């Protein structure tokens, strides 16, 4: 187990270096000039050149790259090219918002998706199965910004249960009210994924010999499904959740924009639009770390879900 974790951390460092190098060069190859973005459309060519020099963008790429890598090693993330605010402060100020939204969406997705998937599988080709499949298909194909607006109109405007601007804080109730709708919006999409994966994994497991044996031995159906079958069907579900969680952090940008919530996704899009190289680099470090940690946790979860899985 320890060897496994150490080995994975070794891979993680190499992955991190590769991602940082790629991001460093890709953002600089992209057309668009941060100096132009900062100075706006009335700036002269001379002023833009002066700004590029002030930002250090006129130096050779190799020098900039070396400085960037040494900075990362020293834990220095620099300041945003556009706003002048420290990258780490900006990233850390939105990271908790992203984590809480992602975790809440995951919880909602799992709470709805797993029972629904099991229910559909155990009622294969009956009405409930068709309805579940249709609903999950709808969840997958519904754009997050449309469902977000609909939720806002219904719960924010008609019923006035929740605030439209979700970035509220101060008290526990304000926190809950601000988190509920965005988490529901993302959670429903996640539930659709989990339902479909759980259903297909359960259908496969329910055909297995040990399920038939358990039933033949007279184990109650409920125990067969929830104790024997679901435990074995969880591995693909965990895989999907792990993969999707990584995607969710970046993909939550639409939900963040519609519900006016801070978050990593929105910060990435803003930095990309403004060609804020240092901000993009800083966020990529965080994003890569999160994906690596989630993957590591997913691998560890396999062992917890299925004792036959040995982590080496």
């Amino acid at each position: 187990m320890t060897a496994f974790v150490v080995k994975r951390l070794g891979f993680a460092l190499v992955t991190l270096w590769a991602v940082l190098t790629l991001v460093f060069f890709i953002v600089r190859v992209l057309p668009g000039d941060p100096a132009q973005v900062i100075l706006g459309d009335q700036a002269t060519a001379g002023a833009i050149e002066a700004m590029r020099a002030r930002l250090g963008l006129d130096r050779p790429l190799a020098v900039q790259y070396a400085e960037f890598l040494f900075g990362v090693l020293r834990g220095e993330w620099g300041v945003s090219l556009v706003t002048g605010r420290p990258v780490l402060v900006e990233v850390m100020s939105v990271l908790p918002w992203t984590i809480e939204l992602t975790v809440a969406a995951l919880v909602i997705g799992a709470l709805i998706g797993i029972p629904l998937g099991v229910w559909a599988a155990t009622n294969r080709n009956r009405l409930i199965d068709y309805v579940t499949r249709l609903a999950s298909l709808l969840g997958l194909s519904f754009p997050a910004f449309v469902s977000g607006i609909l939720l806002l109109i219904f719960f924010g405007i008609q019923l006035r249960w929740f605030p439209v601007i979700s970035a509220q804080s101060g008290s526990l109730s304000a926190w809950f009210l601000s988190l509920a709708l965005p988490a529901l919006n993302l959670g429903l999409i996640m539930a659709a994924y989990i339902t479909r994966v759980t259903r297909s994994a359960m259908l496969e497991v329910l055909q297995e010999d040990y399920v038939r044996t358990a039933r033949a031995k007279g184990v109650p159906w409920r125990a067969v499904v929830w104790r024997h079958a679901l435990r074995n069907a969880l591995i693909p579900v965990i895989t999907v959740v792990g993969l999707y969680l990584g995607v969710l952090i970046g993909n939550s940008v639409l939900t963040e924009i519609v519900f006016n919530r801070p978050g990593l996704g929105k910060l990435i899009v803003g930095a990309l639009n403004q060609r804020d190289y240092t901000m993009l680099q800083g966020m990529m470090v965080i994003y890569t770390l999160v994906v690596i940690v989630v993957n590591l946790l997913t691998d560890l979860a396999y062992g917890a879900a299925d004792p036959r899985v040995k982590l080496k």
Partner: protein
Amino acid sequence: MQKRWMITAALAAAVGLGTATAASAQQTTLRVGIASADAGVLDPHLNSTTPGRGFLQWIFSGLVRIKPGELSPEFMEPDLAERWESSADGTVWTFHLRRGVQCHHNFGEFTAEDAVFSLNRAATRETSAFSSDYVAFRSVEAVDRYTVRITLRNPIPSLLGAVMNYAGGFMVCKAAVDQMGNEGFRRRPIGTGPFAFAEYVPQQFGRLVAHDQYFRGRPQLREVLYRFVPSDAARDLAFQAGEIDMIYGRQDQSWFTRTQQLPNVRVVAMQPAEMSVIHLNMTMPPLNDIRVRQAIAHAVSREQIVQLRGQSTSVAARSVVPAGYLGHHENAPLLPFNQQRARQLLTEAGHPNGITIRAIHTTLPGMMSVMEALQAQLRRSNINLEITPVEHATFHQQIRQNLSQVVHFQSARFPVADVYLTQFFHSRSIVGTPTAVTNFSHCRVADQEIDAARSETDPRRAVELWRTAQEKIVNEVCAFPVFEQLQLWAYRTTLDLGYELKASLNLAPPLLHTTRFTR
């Protein structure tokens, strides 16, 4: 049972009392919703974005200002300077400052030293996006603690425009920059305006508090919350739900009409309009032939574009300098919409089967819809406009690299013809040169008039020169204007701005010390 009723009645009374108290309490926090995820760098000399300028104008003052709600420089009035005078030849200007003006957060009195520091900072390329506005400044000096003297190399059309509460003219407090450095100042901007910077939460809001020592008086609003709400739909919903009191509107007619129907809401389409102009690169064939450029201009109906954009929110352009600017030519000889003449001109130019021209264009939806409408109009005259959509930052870089035959540009500038003409049509501003700004057409026909008007001391003669310059540019078809898009804002009728909002050079309504909620 009776006890239960008594509790219910007590609760109802408490709720009623609470409501009554809340109803009688006057609102003192203004919540503004802006269409952006961020205000950008909080330095008035660097930030030229719409959300940034809107926010910073409430923090900073100028030596002078245009009367709130107005646009034209003819409404110039004192701000930090209580009076000023200039030499007969217009090269030496002396400003006499108010006494006792206090910088925010106890950074001391604003004096001539601060004004000198601010103007020199605005004129420095490393610290200012507007340094080119100050090339005519020879020196800025403090004559005494409350007197500032500006000496120019040559007279300029609007010196007051360079020292007003706009762009490089915003006055910063020297002690704050000295203490915090430029980087620190950008995280905690210090000015002398009615509202002082309190905090900035990225992606959420910027918060200002009343500056009780503001020289015009104690602000009635106690707090301003500037919320970043990039989604148009979310901003509208938050406004409807009462979570925001004032919003930046989506720039189209449907938004204007729908928002106007909301109860207790005032919708304003204000100046300055952003003028949409099509620049034709005269160095690239087939646009190097004036007949082709004339054909393109004839093929476009400005009235149809205005119908598309909305009659309440846009107006057809009349010249290559927007309406309302000092020196605007209201009867510039723009070519009329005439498809037959367009085809005839193309045939004369040796293109009987039509032409294909290419434009690199931003993906911003508001601008793209106009360009697509133009594309459809041009097609009817055998002109095939190929549009290459690129993301906005790429657009700005590539059009400055001279990569696009046709450039669609939408902008507002300081309302004096000189600024627009110099940046878009003077040969010094041709893209791809060291002094480039935004002359995409490579136009150079009106250099003489533009230069002469800049040093002309007779205002009437300057206006004549600007009019001649516009006629020459229009006749040469370096570019042709399409329409002017007004700035749309909505706010609750309970908000009394303290003036009539017709325009704001900083693109957001000014907030005064008298701005207040009536309830």
